[in-house]
């Protein structure tokens, strides 16, 4: 089954939101990325055809944005913020911890394909740094113990209760 057939209803819903088809490009690329973990060339060509674009028009757009993977990444894509605000509170140390614990540097994946590490710029969690994003979830105020627990949780259950919920900082006082 082709990508467009597989997600027929979702694609129709996305297309209905925009008066101009090309606007659906980024949302459709997200659907493609969710399907395979990265955006495949065949998905790009299908999307181009669907939106009446040339393949280069899709490619020029996808390569502008950092959140699309053109190559497979690990099951858990760890992205650590290294911008100034996180760096002030120790993001470089977090990167070193991950390097030591997983044996991978930025841009690398573990041999079992479970973890990939990227070092990224600001993720808008500056008050709760150092922080990282793993797939769709934020993990904030990292400590070495917390990091250990997150990695253990991910290995065993695929998710971790330490991920951030709706953001609020400082937290309101519980009376």
């Amino acid at each position: 089954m082709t990508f467009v057939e597989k997600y027929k209803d979702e694609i129709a819903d996305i297309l209905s939101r925009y008066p101009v088809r090309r606007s659906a490009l980024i949302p459709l690329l997200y659907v493609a990325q969710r399907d395979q973990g990265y955006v495949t060339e065949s998905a790009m060509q299908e999307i181009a055809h669907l939106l009446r674009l040339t393949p280069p028009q899709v490619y020029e757009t996808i390569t502008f944005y950092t959140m699309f993977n053109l190559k497979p990444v690990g099951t858990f894509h760890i992205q650590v913020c290294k911008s100034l605000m996180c760096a002030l509170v120790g993001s470089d140390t977090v990167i070193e911890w991950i390097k030591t614990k997983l044996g991978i540097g930025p841009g690398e994946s573990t041999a079992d394909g479970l973890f990939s590490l990227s070092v990224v710029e600001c993720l808008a969690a500056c008050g709760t740094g150092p922080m990282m994003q793993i797939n769709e979830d934020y993990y904030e105020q990292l400590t070495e113990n917390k990091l250990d627990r997150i990695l253990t949780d991910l290995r065993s259950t695929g998710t971790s209760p330490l991920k951030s919920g709706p953001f609020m900082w400082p937290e309101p006082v519980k009376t």
Partner: protein
Amino acid sequence: MAGTGKDVSSETLGEAGTPLFIVRLACNDPMPKHELILLKNMMQPGYTGSLADYEKTGGYQALRNTLGKLAPADVTAIVRKSGLRGRGGAGFPTGVKWGFLPKDYQGPRYLCCNADESEPGTFKDRQLMERDPHQVLEGIVLACYAIGSETAYIYIRGEMVLGSKILEHAIGEARAAGYIGKNVLGSGINVDVWVHRGAGAYICGEETALLESLEGKRGLPRIKPPFPATHGLYNKPTVVNNVETLANLPHIITRGPEWFAAIGSPPKSTGTRVFCVSGHVKRPGNYEVPMGMTVRELVYEYAGGMRSDKPLKAFIPGGASAPFLTPAHLDVKLDFEHVAAAGSMLGSGGVTVMEEGTSMVWAALRLMEFFYHESCGKCSPCREGSSWLVQTMRRIFAKRGRMEDLETLLDLCKNIAGRTVCAFGDAEVAPIQSTLKHWRHEYVDLINEAEAANLIRPEPVARR
């Protein structure tokens, strides 16, 4: 630990029939007291941000009192009178921006809610959207009514997956209750709101780049004029407003422009501002305070002061694009005019504090690496200049610099700022220019060390 309940106590007081929420910081004397506007609901214990919760606090009353009772032009007039200025960075008066839309244009118009929040040091919109999404949605519907738009897109930064899910859920609730959709509250007005996720590009917070991105293209800023007010999304009249700006609207409508205009430091900087304090402070976080509060008060009373006993060395008052300021500027009032007069800008309200011992060359380099990574590549001064700046800065920080590098840096900065399509060019030179102005000796020390050790060697070309 920063922000734990130990340091902060709070209470709800009844005053003149309306509950007034007061934040009290235990370590402070005298206690700062002021009313919260945007964060008021979410600070209440048990508030989930659901439609039921929001309605209980008087939510969507502003919309009910507007549709069919006020003309769109009246809403614009109220917002103009309130003095509300954009909270995204540029600080342009919101009512005036709306007034630029062509009056006699018959085709579609669009509202874009700028939720890209990508300025380093800023994390307020995330909280507003994730904790009280209906407050933002009510503002969006009000703005749509005022400008005559039937479609609004919330352009949220791609990384905030949770925020986009919460907004989608809230839109569903509001649609079912008749606040969004066809014939809103029986008024005959149609408003559709869609969440559109970005995909990780800082530049898409710039309004014309946002529009390009929303059209499914590379997020390259457009040359202005024409402005989005006449040629925006799909070349149609468009307004782009920040999340915090829109969240203020229900309160302005309900309580009147005079009430809003009296808060803060009128006449030019009215209302409150959610300042995001980060860096070396005890309690980093979002603090909503009236504009015009001094940095000293914000940092030492709200954010609990420095995290260790080292004194404050430097701070940025308005996100990464704002020039650094020194302890001599601690008594600068946080409003648009005073911060600008001090040589920086209020920007997005991200206050980053650095303690004594932080290398300013390192700090400027970290921000420069950010700008180098995020330059969209459209204008050559910015694209090439950011690369040269980051290479020169790396060389100096690695103790391989030479004295003439300082002139090179300043010369590069001069040739980038003001020579690009968007304000990114001005932003990227701010950290270097301001640190060179206030802490030139740190650069000189590193270079002297390099020269003494005879460590000057050519640096390999950095790759993007």
